[in-house]
């Protein structure tokens, strides 16, 4: 495991499952054996405003917040939140925009956030099993099939 910390920002609007998605990523990284920190702001953001969460993983992580302009990956769930968050991305960093997933192909539209994680998973060195375990742990059993389908859709690529 190299010493470099991987920096991720997941952003969107309140109600899009941004914090849920961030929880899944950090759990998957944790299950894969990394040190992980995930940070977010609650409160007023719950009322439909901008929401974002920082996830950092590696051998050892100190600050829980991704320094501005140092995100390796920026995942955005709402088109109008791309520009708001673009400055988070380092030069050469990867933007995963909402058009990376076709919502029409989802078994359940609410799983859009998890489908974006499928796209993200293609870039990260986290074993598929860790992702799947993290997804199963994040939802009640009746929602497993829809979310695993969404993840597979994103991971496969459209």
């Amino acid at each position, binding site marked *: 495991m190299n010493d470099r910390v991987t920096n991720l920002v997941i952003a969107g*609007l*309140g109600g899009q499952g941004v914090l849920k998605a961030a*929880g899944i990523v*950090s*759990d998957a990284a*944790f299950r894969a054996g990394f*040190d*992980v*920190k*995930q*940070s*977010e*702001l*609650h*409160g*007023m*953001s*719950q*009322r*439909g*405003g*901008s929401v*974002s969460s920082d996830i950092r993983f590696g051998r050892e*992580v*100190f*600050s*829980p*917040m991704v*320094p*501005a302009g140092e995100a390796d990956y920026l995942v955005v769930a709402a088109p*109008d*939140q791309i*520009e*708001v*968050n*673009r*400055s988070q991305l380092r030069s050469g960093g990867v933007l995963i925009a909402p058009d990376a997933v076709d919502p029409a192909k989802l078994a359940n539209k609410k799983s859009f956030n998890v489908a974006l994680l499928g796209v993200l998973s293609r870039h990260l060195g986290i074993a598929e099993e860790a992702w799947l375990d993290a997804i199963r742990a994040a939802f009640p059993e009746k929602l497993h099939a829809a979310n695993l389908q969404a993840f597979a859709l994103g991971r496969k690529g459209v």
Partner: protein
Amino acid sequence: MSTKNSVRSLLSGDEAVSLAAWHAGVALGTGYPGTPSTEILENFSALGGHAQWAPNEKVALEVALGAAFAGARAIATMKHVGLNVAADPLFTAAYTGVTGALIVVSADDPGMASSQNEQDNRHYAAAAGLPMLEPADSQEAYDFTFQAVEISERWKIPVLLRMTTRVCHSRTIVRPRAAHVPPRSPHFERDVRGRVMIPAYARPAYRRLRQKLSEIQAWNETCPLNRVVEGDRSLGIITSGISYMHVREAAPRASVLKLGLTHPLPLEKIRAFAAGVNRCLVIEEGDPVLTDAIRAAGVKVESQPEMYRFGELNVARLRRILSGDTSPEPAPVPGKPPQLCPGCSHRYVFEALHKLDSIVAGDIGCYTLGVLPPFEAMDTCVCMGASIGVGLGLRHVLPPEQARRVVSVIGDSTFVHSGITGLVEMVYNPPPTGHLVLILDNSTTAMTGHQEHPGTGRTLEHEPTGKVSFEDLARSLGIQNVHVADPTANPAVLTRLVQECLANGQLNVIIARRPCLLIAGKIKEYDRAASVPCAEALSEES
């Protein structure tokens, strides 16, 4: 996420505090919801702990203090401004001390992600004379909660556990140290001189408190809660809490003294650290509390520039501080502001107030968003409950034609928290033009994530309990006109009612009642669940 076993897990700081409280045998957790502290009690309850919401933080602390007088371990949780409300019992609880353990969690909000001010509650430790622990991540939140219990029991003193937003709401890895220990057996022992703070008994109690603090300070000089990260001796940094994490990342080669027990400070340890480095810099989020205390002890340290006192610290700001950069910081790209949900009943109320050109003394909750366009129907918002007092003050002095436009707007949970005494004031000192208090009752504490309160008639765990009726309360106080209206069902009726109340020159309370649409379904479920035992009992009998 709750966890009961002692394997490593990824927990928020709030979850880590509740897990430690559970493991340490805390018998009672009480508090009032407030970002970023709310999840501590919710998770403590989920783990199996006895947790309850109090009407406000003062009552919460008093309940916890009573439990600690009885020999139990108790925890009271609140956000930073909540400690202002609880400050009265706090200062004298420092004198009385406790028999069991009393942990007071103050969750500060540097950067004001969800608060009306950025007050730095480290001042409370010095002002009240209480030990304060400051965790930097979830592991420390867990460990320090245990330590707080131990310090509280050893010195019979309440302990402040100061969290901040980024510690409360960051998830980091925690390895629990112990399984659940059963709570101590409470018992009452009479100690009149120790517990009844008349002046004759309080004078020696104050001396006892200062004696305890000097013992804790001596212990703190060598205790493992403060540690030195050996590094390059050209730069030494003294810091605490989350700032430590930013420091380690921005200055990986510096020597660092990380303080965990920040009141009373280990001044000799600090003196020795500062003497061993060429430059010694203090990094702290918020006010220069450490800097001032260290300088007052005659230790020469550098401080961060004043501009970094405002808002949260982070790695980028640390790099600027270390490079001496005081140029203006880039403004963050503004995101989409929060707003009242589509269909929210508050919308109809603020549309009415906007239309009537009311002067609105507002309060703390989702409905504070009524200040934003398109409503722009709020003129003041200060603290929990202030809407009523401020509204009355405006009424007393404004010329009558303006006074008659003043309305106090307060939410249901906020009303229970500190609006009731405002209503009493209205009855006792009625303004010449009368007044109107509008209670926006959406049957939950919506802003912090839908917690119960005494007006919902359900406990923290959503079980049925005693219910405070706002209309009965208002009528019992002798308020002439008490109305209940559903703003969503008939906005025109509500508007007319407000108009009438503003015109009648009397004392009026309108309860605008409509359950929050995000929770309406759940409330029906709770009510259904509450009625199940009766149905089962009936079917067993038949």
